[in-house]
């Protein structure tokens, strides 16, 4: 700036100078002056050039410094972002133990039946008027090593104990996107068979599941699940199992134990479609075949179709959703008296109308070939599959698990979940079997879960 002013003054002076000179001297001096002027001008230009260069250099240096400072800041921010090693607190020590995740879930139900001797379809349903212990489920779950995880669930009553599930799952990448489960597990047959009591929507178990699968179909076996490389989720499941000790008369071990063809084979195909962000649909088919224990070589074939649709608009009412779950089952059983055809279905619609509340309606029925009335003990020697009540040491077990004929049932329920870990459910049921009097039932169910936070299956 100052330099410029100096230059301007200089030039001004330069212009004035010759004028003054001209008045006093003419001739040679003029040439001299001209020369001097030229020299001066050249010097000036050189100075200006140098000045510009210096300014340029200065700017470059400043920019460089700024860049370096920024880079230093970035480096600093990045290095500061690396967390210090965590302090070993009391909690860390607790969390760091390699114990499995433990959970305990208790289900208690106050029940009122309008009948004296209501028909109980599934083992863990409430049995009679009064307060019932439905189930205490204890779970131990954890990762075994980089290759397997292990999940186990034990169902405990006042004086009963059942290993509900205890199986390992592979965690490694296997060819064909497959996953293997080994152990005692709820078989992938339909949908409700995979739902533990505490994650079901109603107090009682749907009739087709109770009658054809027992409380749950949980054989010991090896199961292969394949994830098909398709744009949508499609899972193929095939398992080979032993039917020993199942709670259902549908399948039983064959006396001809060395015959591989007579083990229990279960297949399932699951599809899942995300139709829109809010609407999902899963559609599956199942097939189970195995001997039924009536006579060597007699088998049961059980077919199932399952449907689950869920509508949950995320944007407007994030905690409102509606889901529909429905299954159809068809059982074909060979017996000495010819083939028996039994079928059943249920459909349940649940509406969650607030974050902690839901209400639902269920309709379920079974239709069996040969309606039979509850039998006397001595009649149990008949070879009809439906009348086989396996007994242990002469003690009658599950005398009502057989199939009894046509039966319809309706249920409505209202559920309140104070938190994710407790539940209160009120349910009314109307049961209309054609082999006995129809009756009403009202249930008030309480459910509590303690320990590890279980994830919610879809």
């Amino acid at each position: 700036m100052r330099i410029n002013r100096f230059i301007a003054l200089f030039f001004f002076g330069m212009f004035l100078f010759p004028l003054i000179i001209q008045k006093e001297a003419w001739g040679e001096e003029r040439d001299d002056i001209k020369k001097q002027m030229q020299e001066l001008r050249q010097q000036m230009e050189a100075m200006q050039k140098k000045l510009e260069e210096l300014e340029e250099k200065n700017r470059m240096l400043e920019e460089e410094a700024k860049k370096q400072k920024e880079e230093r800041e970035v480096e600093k921010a990045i290095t500061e972002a690396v967390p210090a090693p965590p302090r070993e607190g009391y909690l860390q020590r607790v969390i760091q133990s390699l114990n499995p995740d433990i959970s305990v879930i208790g289900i208690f139900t106050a029940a009122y039946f309008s009948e004296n001797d209501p028909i109980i379809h599934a083992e863990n349903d409430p049995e009679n008027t009064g307060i019932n212990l439905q189930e205490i489920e204890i779970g131990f779950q954890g990762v075994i090593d980089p290759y397997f995880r292990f999940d186990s669930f034990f169902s405990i009553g006042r004086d009963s104990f059942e290993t509900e599930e205890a199986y390992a799952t592979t965690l490694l990448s296997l060819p064909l996107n497959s996953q293997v489960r080994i152990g005692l597990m709820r078989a992938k047959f339909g949908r409700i068979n995979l739902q533990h009591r505490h994650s079901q929507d109603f107090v009682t178990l749907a009739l087709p599941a109770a009658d054809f699968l027992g409380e749950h179909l949980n054989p010991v076996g090896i199961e292969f699940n394949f994830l098909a490389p398709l744009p949508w989720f499609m899972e193929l499941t095939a398992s080979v199992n032993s039917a020993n000790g199942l709670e259902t008369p549908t399948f039983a071990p064959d006396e001809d134990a060395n015959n591989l063809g007579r083990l229990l084979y279960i297949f399932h195909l699951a599809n899942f479609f995300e139709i829109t962000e809010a609407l999902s649909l899963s559609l599956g088919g199942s097939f189970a075949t195995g001997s039924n224990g009536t006579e060597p070589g007699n088998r049961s074939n059980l077919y199932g179709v399952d449907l689950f649709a869920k509508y949950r608009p995320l944007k407007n009412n994030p905690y409102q959703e509606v889901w529909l779950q429905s299954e159809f089952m068809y059982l074909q059983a060979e017996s000495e008296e010819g083939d028996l055809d039994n079928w059943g279905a249920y459909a349940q619609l649940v509406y969650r109308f607030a974050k902690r509340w839901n209400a639902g309606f269920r309709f379920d029925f079974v239709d069996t070939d040969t309606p039979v009335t509850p039998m006397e003990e001595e009649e149990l020697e008949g070879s009809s599959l439906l009348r086989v009540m396996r007994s242990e040491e002469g003690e009658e077990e599950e005398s009502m698990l057989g199939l009894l004929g046509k039966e319809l049932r309706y249920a409505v329920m209202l559920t309140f979940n104070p938190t994710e870990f407790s539940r209160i459910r009120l349910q009314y049921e109307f049961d209309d079997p054609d082999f006995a009097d129809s009756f009403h039932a009202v249930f008030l169910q309480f459910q509590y879960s303690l320990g590890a936070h279980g994830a919610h299956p879809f």
Partner: protein
Amino acid sequence: MKTQKFLQSLALHFCLALLVIAFSLFASAIDALAKVKVVASLPTFAAITKEIGGDKVEVESLAKGYQDPHFVDAKPSYVLKLNRADLLIYNGLDLEIGWLPPLITGSRNSKITSTNSPGNLNASTLISNILEVPTMRVDRSMGDIHPGGNPHYILDPKNGIAVANGIAERLKEIDPKNSSYYDQRLKDFVKRLNAKAKEWEEKLAPYKGTKIVPYHKSWNYFSDWAGFQEVGYVEPKPGIPPSPSYVADLIRKIQGMNVKLVIAESYYPQKVPALIAQKAGASFLVLPAQVGGGDGINTYFDLLDAIVNDVTSKLENMKQAVNSSNLAGG
């Protein structure tokens, strides 16, 4: 006859299995040419990954930005996404405990099933200042607490830098040939974020000490950064909806405190916080807490921009209203 039928069905399944083999071979051939596939549990992590990975990665988020991250449906289609992922990034500190673990187990993908494999990034391990780490034994009478500390750390830009750095490290480990690319993008991201953070802090500076009442304990990190003071919560305990008597108590408690803002994410009920704000003489603000939590919020910068701008403009308006009413009164 019967065995024939059985054999037929077995044969059928065998054929199906063969079909699956053919398919998967085809699929793996295509895979060989692909970019690094990243799946983030939440959209904010997906956004930061995009900043670092650029066109060398393919990023997907499972949850939506306008969704409560505690309660996401574990859809089987997510299993498919995880099955094909090279890297899974999730928040950790039990935020996704209700839905993510079974998806990881079902993924059949050893790149992500082990907690310490390069493809499994629990982003909370990158954070050095986790707030509210319990120092005593916790139980659920405290509500739905997170034993590892408060999981909503991403709303503090310095944690954004930590996460970005962690993501860059993992990408370099998984895809070493593009290391310098990721480094360059990380530097660029941090530079822009630092500049923006200065801007945001300048904007927030005049409002240090502002008293606010959030719906859920999801704003602690933001308040910590902005210098706000949280004097109460709309929820009596995390995850427990407010009862009328609690709301009445809360209003009484905060009435004389000069609380300026009541804030809630869009997925929480709006009526109760709005009422509390009105009674306490505060303003009610619905704020996004994730990228994608509102229109035009597509990057981490957009998210913090939206939050800071909404908060400061609201506070500015309130100040002016007070001044003008004072003038009118005086």
